[in-house]
């Protein structure tokens, strides 16, 4: 099967962030400011991405607003013809800066919320006053007229706030909310005891979302990521490894997903040395899990393999020790029971301290 061109690109402009969420998807080994790509290299990457077939660009981090040249980068992305989305904690964006981003053509803003009140949000984000600043930002966003998506990561400590989060999204005039149960990669792996929801909580969240989708049809679009340790089938990883999206790390390393560097035997090129096209079509890292030649049983002979691609490679490695194994979330995986037992054990741990993310 020929490799299709990528459609979406996540640009992790920096790992720097004023918050320190204990589930941050950044790697444990964070890139320092001195390793970050310069402005022109990013803009060149946006041009290359558009020529390659990318339509949607997500500017992320860390906190992308920590980059002084954010407005220039947005203008460059729009000039390249990309739909440009800013994924932000809201910190570091003043009203004037937002207006400049609007001028530069920013298409959409995705604002993260660590909780629905100051007590929760400031504790999980690790910064006093952060919640108040986010609320201010939401007001400016609505005054300028940016389309807004609210993003909430749910876990054992804040899952009860889901109903309020849905209300807040509407109050802020968001068209969309992303409700993502914490995924265990990056820093979240250090916090499974503190963050794992119970099965009952996970089921309750899914039921609440189903109900809200009915009630809010045509008003608020809800995207939901369930608690996958408690599921019976894995989520599609990135729409298939190396088949629709790519990530660029702050130092220019090009990855099939943000956690791909946890697979130690894979090598990923840097865009300072190779073109995006070469990397996408020809690098061994991107080719490693394309198609199904790499699959083992039970995936190999499973009809669902064209739908979920055997699940997440990083999770397969983290739990089974083999990146080519069936994602243990899958009920057919020999490690499935082990995963569910782990989930219950994590969920039942009392008084687990939060390990906060460090700064880059």
């Amino acid at each position, binding site marked *: 099967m020929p490799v299709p061109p990528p459609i979406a690109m996540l640009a992790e402009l920096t790992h720097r962030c004023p918050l320190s969420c204990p589930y941050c998807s950044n790697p444990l080994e964070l890139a320092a400011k001195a390793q970050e790509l310069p402005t022109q290299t990013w803009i060149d990457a946006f041009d290359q991405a558009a020529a390659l077939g990318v339509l949607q660009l997500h500017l992320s981090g860390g906190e992308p607003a920590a980059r002084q040249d954010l407005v220039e980068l947005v203008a460059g992305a729009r000039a390249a013809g990309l*739909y440009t989305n800013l994924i932000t904690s809201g910190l570091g964006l003043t009203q004037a800066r937002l207006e400049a981003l609007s001028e530069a053509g920013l*298409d959409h803003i995705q604002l993260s919320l660590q909780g629905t009140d100051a007590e929760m949000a400031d504790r999980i984000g690790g910064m006093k006053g952060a919640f108040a600043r986010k609320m201010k930002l939401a007001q400016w966003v609505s005054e300028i007229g940016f389309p807004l998506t609210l993003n909430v990561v749910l876990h054992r400590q804040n899952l009860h706030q889901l109903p309020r989060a849905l209300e807040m999204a509407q109050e802020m005039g968001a068209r*969309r909310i992303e409700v993502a149960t914490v995924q265990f990669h990056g820093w979240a792996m250090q916090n499974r005891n503190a963050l794992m929801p119970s099965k009952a909580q996970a089921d309750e969240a899914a039921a609440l979302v189903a109900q809200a989708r009915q009630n809010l049809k045509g008003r608020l679009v809800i995207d939901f990521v369930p608690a996958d340790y408690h599921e019976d089938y894995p989520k599609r990883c990135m729409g298939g490894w190396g088949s629709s999206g790519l990530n660029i790390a702050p130092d220019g390393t090009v990855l099939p997903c943000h956690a791909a560097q946890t697979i130690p035997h894979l090598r990923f090129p840097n865009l300072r040395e190779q073109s995006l096209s070469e990397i996408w079509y020809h690098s061994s890292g991107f080719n490693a899990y394309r198609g199904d030649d790499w699959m083992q049983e039970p995936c190999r002979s499973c009809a669902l393999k064209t739908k979920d691609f055997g699940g997440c490679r990083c999770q397969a490695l983290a739990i089974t020790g083999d990146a080519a194994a069936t994602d243990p979330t899958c009920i057919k995986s020999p490690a499935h029971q082990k995963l569910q037992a782990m989930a219950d054990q994590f969920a039942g741990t009392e008084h687990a301290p939060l390990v906060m993310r460090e700064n880059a």
Partner: protein
Amino acid sequence: MSPIPADSIPYLPRGVRLHRDHVRARWVLLAPERTIALDEIGHAILSELDGARPFADVVARLAAKFDAPAPQIADDVSGFLGTLRARRFLELA
């Protein structure tokens, strides 16, 4: 979604736009986290939305363009725009 009233003005809100996808030689509608591939008809319908034209005019122009009866076009267009509306990719003024 309820049918679109004849005098309301359907429009693409900020953050939703038509885009020519040169690499795949097609038109797409770009929206937050979504890319919708458009066929010729879908593109023709959305190209008629200029932020001022009421639904009835959109239908009349498409009926002339495709040489088809207006009531049938109205149903089809209303159905197509209704799906976009449900996903908040289209608003009515």
